[in-house]
């Protein structure tokens, strides 16, 4: 079967440092996959290569049957990969609603002239975008905050807004970089349910970076473990939990 995402021998070097080394990874349709590993293992760097922020030194990324490594981030988004950021990157001085609506621009049909003169078509499209954006906000339980500035949201809600914004790009593959970071246990539990629900509802695949092991073991169907830039193990949660290499990577030798 053709995989949705197929990563082959992905490598990136920053000067002398090999941050990610010959990583191989596959994600199928409607899969929920985890990417875990100690701090500085190279997880975010993998995301940055998948989304075109960094160009890999060598290796290949195929998505949906097309080669995507080395192309621009916005082109990758239009091929339906969307992401969130570990260190939240919202459009701070835009409203919550506007943040989500930005993701519709590359899918919109209105021309620049139509925008400047607010053509009937533009008004219609705008109303539709607003309605749709509200639906995504509802999913992330942010619909009552639509008109607030993104910077005024509490931390946990900012993380959820990032997910709503990424969903609005209508991805086939959603990349979440530590979505539960800074959340309390109750918020994390809620988020876990949301992620599961999103995957089922939109029939999309999710690749999840997370340090909260309870969340990872709870939702992921398959897990890749990265340590010092290399995949040291992969498998279903039960296998990963028992794998001595993984325990060693997290706790150090002799643990």
């Amino acid at each position: 079967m053709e995989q949705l995402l197929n990563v082959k021998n992905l490598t990136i070097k920053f000067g002398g440092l090999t941050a990610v080394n010959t990583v191989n990874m596959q994600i199928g349709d409607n899969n929920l996959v985890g990417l875990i590993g100690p701090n500085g293992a190279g997880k975010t760097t993998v995301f940055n290569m998948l989304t075109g922020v960094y160009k890999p030194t060598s290796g290949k990324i195929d998505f949906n049957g097309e080669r995507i490594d080395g192309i621009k981030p916005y082109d990758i988004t239009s091929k339906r990969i969307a992401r969130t950021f570990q260190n939240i990157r919202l459009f701070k001085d835009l409203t919550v609603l506007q943040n989500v609506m930005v993701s519709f621009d590359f899918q919109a049909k209105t021309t620049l002239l139509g925008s400047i003169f607010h053509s009937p078509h533009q008004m219609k499209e705008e109303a539709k975008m607003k309605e749709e954006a509200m639906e995504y906000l509802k999913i992330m339980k942010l619909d009552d905050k639509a008109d607030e500035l993104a910077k005024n949201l509490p931390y946990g809600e900012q993380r959820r807004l990032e997910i709503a914004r990424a969903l609005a790009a209508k991805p086939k593959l959603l990349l979440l970089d530590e979505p539960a970071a800074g959340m309390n246990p109750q918020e994390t539990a809620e988020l876990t349910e949301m992620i599961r629900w999103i995957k089922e509802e939109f029939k999309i695949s999710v690749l999840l970076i997370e340090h909260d092991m309870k969340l990872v073991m709870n939702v992921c169907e398959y897990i890749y473990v990265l340590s010092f830039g290399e995949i040291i193990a992969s498998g279903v949660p039960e296998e990963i939990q028992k794998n001595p290499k993984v325990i060693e990577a997290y706790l150090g030798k002799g643990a």
Partner: protein
Amino acid sequence: MEEQMKDTAFDKSVIVKTYIKYAIIIGVLFAIYGIALLLIQRGILDSYTLRVVKTAGIFMIAAFGLNLILGYTGQLTMGHAAFMSIGAYGSAIMTQKFNMPYGVSLLVGILAAAILAALIGYPILRLKGDYLAICTLGFGEIVKVVIQNIDYVGGARGMTSIPVKTSLMTIFFCVALCFAIIKNLIHSSKGRAIMSVREDDIAAEAMGINPTKYKMISFVLGSAMAGLAGGLYAHFNTFIDPVTFNYAKSFDFITYVVLGGMGSVSGTVVGTAILVFLPESLRGLSEVFKENRMLIYAIMLVALMIFRPNGILGTKEITVKGIANWCKRIYAKITHKGDKTAKAGE
């Protein structure tokens, strides 16, 4: 199926309402213009004041353009006046040397500024922050020196006896048009894309926005407005020279925009109006004030920036609704002082 459902859900009355709103706004604008004409006729608005009003209007148009680039797109350019200069020379050449109609000359000025902006924007908009600022500053000086060395347009002496063509009506119309263009653009998908680039270009890229494309759109459109302002200025002042549009003028525009509030179109109106009128009004004061006019002006600027660091309006806009709400609040305060319900309505 889902698409269709959403289609019918969209209320056609939104479109009708918008056009009614436009009609009302145009009506109000004509009323304001009528009042201005009446004031001129009665001699209340003397020719000197009228000149200041016209100047403010012209500079406002250029400042709108700069606000788009600086306030909404977050690109610090310091060569805005150079595009005004291109527009001024371009249109003055058309009327003076080729006997072209005024409208055509303005269009040529706008196009010249826009084309030049597209040409230099492509390489330099990749630069960020200080680098972009320095580069545009240098560009502005290059334009000045180049024009100083073209004898065809009078070199450093400038162009004189350009026909007077810019009426109050033209300026008024252009201000309204540019205001509407920016306002509409900002309240559209493209406008949100432009602001997302200002907020965080990496996140914008991840959401499918091509930052270079939107920086270019705003730079070209903003510079075109400077070009229009240049054309209007040339046919208002009848004399232009390269030094009129040097870096000091570019800084003036930045001051107007920053003072009014970056990312507020009505802020630019307020900022420009205050800063054009302030030095003029200080002229009428006593000798001491007169001599230290620019000093007072500078002190006022510093004070404003201390007390309102985001500009007078910040990113807020003056809207009819806002004014109505404000009046209501004042009214409520006067009628029932200390009434709890009035407070809850705030």
